């Protein structure tokens, strides 16, 4: 559904992505794992067209070439991105946030039939948002903001949803809820690119896995190759265990 090949890029002189290949199969979840600073967020930014400088590489969505398009054209083509840190518009109300999420939908009016229908769907999926629809998004709790961000991204009915650390800063119960929601969306047929630091939980719902390190893909493939827990140690406890054995001097 989504295929990214040979993406290279960064911020000005700073290269953070080096020839990254990653893909998402239709109706599946690809989890991108890796330590902080490995380039995971930059990868999503690059796919969404938000990374300031992208050198080489190709982004294809459902057979359509998105390379070089500005972000809004990519969203229109069926890509959706939930950014890190629940970037909802704090000063706007929940409903306004949702309507803005549906910006890419047709119709001139704020409440065009298409947007109205999407709004209704969002409220059905997240009843909590309906209750708080007139509240400024900034007054929601962290978990509610994350749900709002996801609901916003779903408004235009995307083909591929990209999520950047949706569990960050959330209580375990909420994390479970969020990831269950992600799995449910997949089961409904959505293709998902998930960047997640909670490796165990990400692996639980993922179909495919890509491990990033130093701006490159260090390993990738179907999940069952990553099931034994070694990958977690590699990612979070360092690639070479030698560092542990040197100990304190």
């Amino acid at each position, binding site marked *: 559904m989504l295929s990214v090949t040979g993406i290279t890029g960064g911020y*000005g002189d700073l290269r953070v992505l080096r020839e990254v290949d990653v893909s998402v199969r239709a109706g599946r979840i690809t989890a991108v794992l890796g330590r902080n600073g490995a380039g995971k967020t930059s990868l999503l930014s690059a796919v*969404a*067209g*938000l990374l*300031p400088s992208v050198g080489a590489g190709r982004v294809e969505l459902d057979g359509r070439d998105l390379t070089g398009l*500005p*972000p*809004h054209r990519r*969203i*229109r083509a069926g890509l959706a*991105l939930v*950014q890190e840190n629940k*970037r*909802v*518009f*704090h*000063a*706007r109300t929940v409903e*306004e946030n949702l*309507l*803005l*999420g549906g*910006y*890419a939908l047709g119709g*001139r*009016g*704020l409440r065009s039939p298409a947007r109205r229908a999407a709004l209704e769907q969002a409220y059905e999926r997240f009843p909590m948002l309906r209750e708080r629809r007139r509240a400024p998004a900034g007054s929601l709790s962290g978990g509610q903001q994350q749900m709002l961000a996801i609901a*916003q991204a779903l408004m*235009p009915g995307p083909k591929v949803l990209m999520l950047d650390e949706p569990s960050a800063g959330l209580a375990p119960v909420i994390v479970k809820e969020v990831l269950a929601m992600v799995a449910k969306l997949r089961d409904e047929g959505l293709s998902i690119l998930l960047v997640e630091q909670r490796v165990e939980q990400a692996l639980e719902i993922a179909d495919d896995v890509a491990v990033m390190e130093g701006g490159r893909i260090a390993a990738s493939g179907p999940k069952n190759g990553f099931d034994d827990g070694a990958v977690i140690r590699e990612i979070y406890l360092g690639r070479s265990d030698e560092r542990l054995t040197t100990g304190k001097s």
Partner: protein
Amino acid sequence: MTTVWAGLATGAIYSLVAIGYNVVLLASGTFNFAHAQLLMAGTFLAYTGAVTLGLPVLPTLLLGAAGVAVVALLEERIAIRPLLGRSDAHGALITTVGAATILDGLAAVIWGREPLTVPSVLPDEPLTLLGGTVRPVDLALIALTLLTGVGLHLWSRHSLLGLASLASAEDREAAAARGINVRLLGTGAFVLAGAIAGVFGLLVGARTYAVFDLGHSLALFGFVAIAIGGSGSQLGGLIGGFATGLVYAFAARYIGAEFPQIVVFGVFLLILFLRPRGLFGAALERRV
């Protein structure tokens, strides 16, 4: 009361400048120093339309709106667009002053340095209203400015584009990730601000004359209006402009003809000193 009317009429012009600043600021995050020059260009185009070409009112308004919108578009392309994405934040500080100066200079070259009288489109007989006299054209200026300010305020909260503009003012990248074309929005804001300035050229010119350095004092008083009303708030700018106009008129009436600017300056310094936060550029806590 006559002083109040005079203050409101002058204040309406300052409100218009503040509104123009805000339209662009909200959508593109740029403070367009040259906006007052756009209003100046509007008065000259009104003169050209009404006097030189002898056009009726409606075509003159259209000429002003289209002409100034084009000027604003050019300004955005030349002075703002090349700076987008640069890390050095104070580039626009220099380039918008540059654009303003070029507009001043071009106006002086094209229309000369002497003030030109823009004819009043309404009868000149002053009306007596609420115990004061006011020219119909000034009354129209006040009313239409109010209408524009309130209209823009409502529009920004109840239309898709308006909300998109508020959202991109809050977080440009997040707005782009929602499918909002932030660049086009920014350009559109310049064009809209230009068109508004152009339409009002006829009414403003009837009160101020068309003169090449009109922009200077308008820029300042428009900025004072923003400082009073808070940046990015259309209603605030509207109120700030009228307040500035009233202070000006009363100082001129009761203190002396040399003093109104000095008094407004004093008020300006006082506001910056006492209430700097929440006035211009709200301080955000998340900055590391």
